[in-house]
């Protein structure tokens, strides 16, 4: 077991309203080594909040989050995050962006260059070493962000709708590439999305959160072989099941 969330709740105190917003309520979740877990749920149910707490940017209001049995106390490269929006530093080249995290860790230059080169290859961006982020497409930027985070060799990869801002086609391709990468390199991944299809394509396990305050409504193990066909009988069944569950938690016509 890599990660364990126990009775995690998050309340944001809003001074203007004078009362708290309960974003998450009593989340219990354990993630095993090399597991690919997707979190889905309606907007505002606390997916990002959960990820940010695991990343260490915020503390849970109640409960505990442990990585390798150690309480999380702040951000750390052992919990690598890929953000939804581009977080590359615009004044650094692609290569410098990937090397930056390693430099912070005090990794010597030659080793840094080796590692950066390797991860550039892995995400298929060889030859773009010296490009600046603004010269890349959205999909390429996210690939660089993934390479940068992977280069830190994190124990768990936290991805918050990393392909959410991309078009359908690019997203499909990146999903596929991420899957290949995960299969080859054995990583533990926690992936937030609000697309049922994306979750089914990727996950070993799908966690469905309810509307705010987010609780775990469903924890579904998927044991289908990959690559998965979205139109195969089993997958269609799971899609329908998930859709029904989603309807249960937030029936249409109800204000969000």
């Amino acid at each position: 077991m890599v990660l364990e969330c126990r009775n995690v709740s998050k309340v944001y105190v809003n001074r203007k309203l004078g009362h708290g917003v309960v974003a998450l309520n009593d989340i219990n979740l354990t993630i095993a080594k090399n597991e690919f877990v997707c979190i889905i749920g309606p907007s505002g149910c606390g997916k990002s909040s959960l990820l940010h707490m695991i990343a260490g940017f915020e503390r849970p209001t109640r409960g505990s989050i442990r990585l390798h049995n150690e309480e999380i106390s702040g951000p750390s490269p052992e919990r690598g995050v890929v953000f939804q929006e581009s977080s590359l530093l615009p004044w650094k080249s692609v290569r410098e962006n990937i090397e930056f995290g390693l430099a912070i860790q005090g990794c010597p230059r030659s080793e840094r260059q080796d590692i950066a080169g390797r991860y550039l290859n892995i995400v298929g961006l060889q030859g773009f070493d010296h490009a600046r982020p603004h010269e890349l497409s959205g999909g390429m930027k996210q690939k660089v962000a993934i390479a940068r985070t992977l280069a830190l060799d994190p124990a768990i990869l936290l991805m918050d709708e990393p392909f959410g801002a991309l078009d359908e086609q690019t997203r499909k391709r990146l999903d596929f590439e991420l899957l290949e990468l995960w299969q080859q390199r054995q990583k533990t991944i926690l992936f937030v999305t609000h697309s049922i299809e994306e979750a089914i394509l990727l996950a070993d396990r799908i966690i469905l959160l309810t509307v705010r305050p987010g609780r775990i409504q469903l924890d579904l193990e998927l044991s289908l072989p990959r690559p998965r066909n979205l139109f195969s009988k089993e997958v269609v069944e799971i899609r329908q099941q998930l859709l029904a569950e989603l309807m249960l938690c937030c029936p249409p016509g109800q204000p969000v």
Partner: protein
Amino acid sequence: MIFIMGLTPIIINTAGGIRSIPPIYIKSARMMGATRFLIFFRVMLPAATLAIVTGLRIGLANSWRVLIAAEMIVGAGVGLGYAIIQSRWSLDFEAAFVCVVIICVIGLVVEKLGFEVVEKRIMAQMGLGQD
């Protein structure tokens, strides 16, 4: 006076520049294990470079104006501002105009050859303003 007029925009712009840094840069640096010191010098300062240069530019322009005015009023005995006043007193309008033109040219040269080039370079590097 020259100092204050010059320094204020520099400080305001730097502060504004640092405040408008996307928080995501700082978050991702923290995720990579950066200390506060590193975040300041390796992320915040470079991200605010453009604003700092703009501040310098306004600051220097202000200082330049105040300097000329001060020379006119205080009458230091040297300088372009003093020279204008001198020529006015001696009704030498041509000399006064020459001085004004010189003042403009110096200002323009510093602007165009100094700051604009630097700003353009930074903007090109960060991929800003080229649509």
